[in-house]
């Protein structure tokens, strides 16, 4: 296990994309300490900001290394960016871009995560136990492709545009979301167990946006088809629970949802499933 402890809270964001199990796993402690992190526009050795400890224990489930990051890390950006294996645990908060473009492994954020968590991720599990900022599991400006795989779980609330532009994958928000959840999705699934904001599913081509707590209003380009009990949501709920994720019973399974097809301003093969 590799343990990194941030020495003190930083006012200027620290960019630390080197902190992934992939990069750190093969290195000795001294080599890790020399890796560059960016403090403002200056490259500093990692040891200037983090204490580093390495021991042989704690292999992740996929056989990759385990890395634990501790301390006041709310302004440390790009933790776990592009990681592909192993397990990264952020014991506190994570700054922007945590787990962005990750392709495998597990990234666990015990606290909250700032904007763009899991942006354009393609695989693996990103589990934020607290809140997530805007555009979690979404895309960067200028890109048409959001998530293409993997699973993003947010234990609390999430900001705007969760799961935007998704092509494949799963976003689960146990709390509420703000506006534009699942906007411009091409495929994939967004499950919001709380309430959604405005314009959920705007521009949806295919894919599924589920908002168990309902939304304040539905875009006029969605057409209500029926009220039914979608059996497949029980498969999701049980699979998530079997993976150890805290999806409460009775929120997704065995209850009626309004099904709306749309967005008819686009291809119109997507669906909004609204509870509440």
């Amino acid at each position: 296990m590799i343990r990194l402890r941030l020495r003190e809270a930083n006012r200027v964001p620290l960019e630390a994309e080197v902190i992934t199990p992939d990069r750190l796993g093969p290195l000795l402690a001294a080599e890790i300490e020399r890796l560059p992190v960016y403090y403002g526009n200056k490259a500093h050795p990692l040891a200037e900001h983090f204490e580093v400890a390495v021991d042989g224990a704690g292999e992740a489930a996929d056989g990759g290394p385990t890395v634990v990051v501790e301390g006041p890390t709310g302004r440390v950006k790009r933790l776990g960016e592009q990681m592909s294996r192993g397990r990264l645990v952020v014991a506190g908060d994570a700054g922007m871009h945590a787990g962005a473009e990750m392709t495998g492994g597990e990234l666990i954020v015990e606290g909250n995560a700032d904007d763009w968590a899991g942006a354009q991720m393609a695989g693996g599990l990103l589990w934020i136990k607290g809140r997530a900022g805007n555009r979690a599991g979404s895309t960067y400006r200028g890109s048409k492709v959001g998530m293409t795989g993997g699973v993003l779980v947010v234990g609390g609330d999430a900001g705007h545009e969760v799961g935007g532009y998704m092509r494949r994958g799963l976003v689960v928000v146990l709390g509420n979301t703000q506006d534009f959840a699942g906007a411009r999705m091409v495929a994939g699934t967004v499950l919001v167990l709380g309430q959604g904001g405005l314009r959920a599913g705007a521009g949806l081509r295919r894919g599924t946006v589920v908002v168990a707590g309902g939304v304040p209003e539905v875009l006029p380009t969605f057409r209500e088809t029926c009220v039914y009990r979608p059996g497949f949501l029980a498969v999701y709920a049980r699979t998530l629970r079997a993976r150890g994720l805290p999806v409460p019973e009775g929120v997704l399974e065995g209850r009626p949802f309004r099904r709306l097809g749309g967005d008819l301003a686009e291809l119109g093969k997507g669906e909004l499933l609204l509870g509440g």
Partner: protein
Amino acid sequence: MNIDGVVIEDTYAEAFSMYVSRLVITAASRRWALTAAESLTGFATSVIGCGCEAGIDPGALDETPDGRPGVAVLVFGMSRRALEQQLVARVGQSVMTAPTTACFDGLPGAGERLAVGAKLRFFGDGFQISKRLDAALFAADGRGHRRFWRIPVMDGEFVVDDRVGVQKGVGGGNFLIVAEGVEAGLASAERASDAIRRTPGVIAPFPGGVVRSGSKVGSRYKFLTASTNSAYCPTLRRLVPTVLEAGDGAVFEVVIDGVDAAAVEAAMRAGIRAAIGPGVRRISAGNYGGKLGAFTFPLRPLFAETRTPSAAENRTTAVGDKRMAAAAEDHTPAADQKRTAAASASKGRQS
């Protein structure tokens, strides 16, 4: 060997490799899950005439993928291609049609997969929706992603796994109950069938788990590959070469397919023990000299305290496995026909 006055003949059952898939059928109530399962496994007594052999898996089903009441079924075929065709046809006609049902893979750990939902999805006429549960959700058991289809139907959606697992199984385990008459023989066969129904990982595919029309290979009619097993017909005793003795009034066969040899052996042991009772004269088994089947199940060692497979049994098993594996790789229609003929000869029975 004699158990409670019933002779256990010094012979063995001969069985062979098959491919098996396990499906979990769920529905709003157990009634509808069972209805679909019974329909799917109907007319599936023998690969020779039905294309597959199928039955309800008596193993415990503690939970189902969607948490609803469910029933597991086992379906056996001679090749992966033949099995896939049967699964698509039977799930499509017997499960998708049954109200509120869903159909899931019951062998998620199997290395090979057959396309079931992947083919049935077209029924959705373009309105089917694919859902993919990412491999990250199954990290603990190391399997890949799971894809299933949601096909719009008149009561909502039919959910079906894209692919289902398939593995090697064992078909054709058997034993014969030779009784004084029909009443005693039937009572014995019913007890055996009930015992086998409580054994996990096996099915007894014939009606009620019992066969009364055992067959021999060949016929005096050129168009028929098998005909009645005259040596076991009481009405032909002393008219044709027979194995029946004076006082043998009826014979019933119990056929067993299992997910592996151990399951078949356990079912044979349980079935034979239950079959022993008043009016039963002896227990025998069907074999063809060990030449056709990949597996042999000697009867007497089933009841020994510890059973050690004989050298001949091990040799037969190993050779048979290789032969069946090689044959199963060939998916040409001619090869399929050949396999079915081999099964016909090997099993020596059809209704």
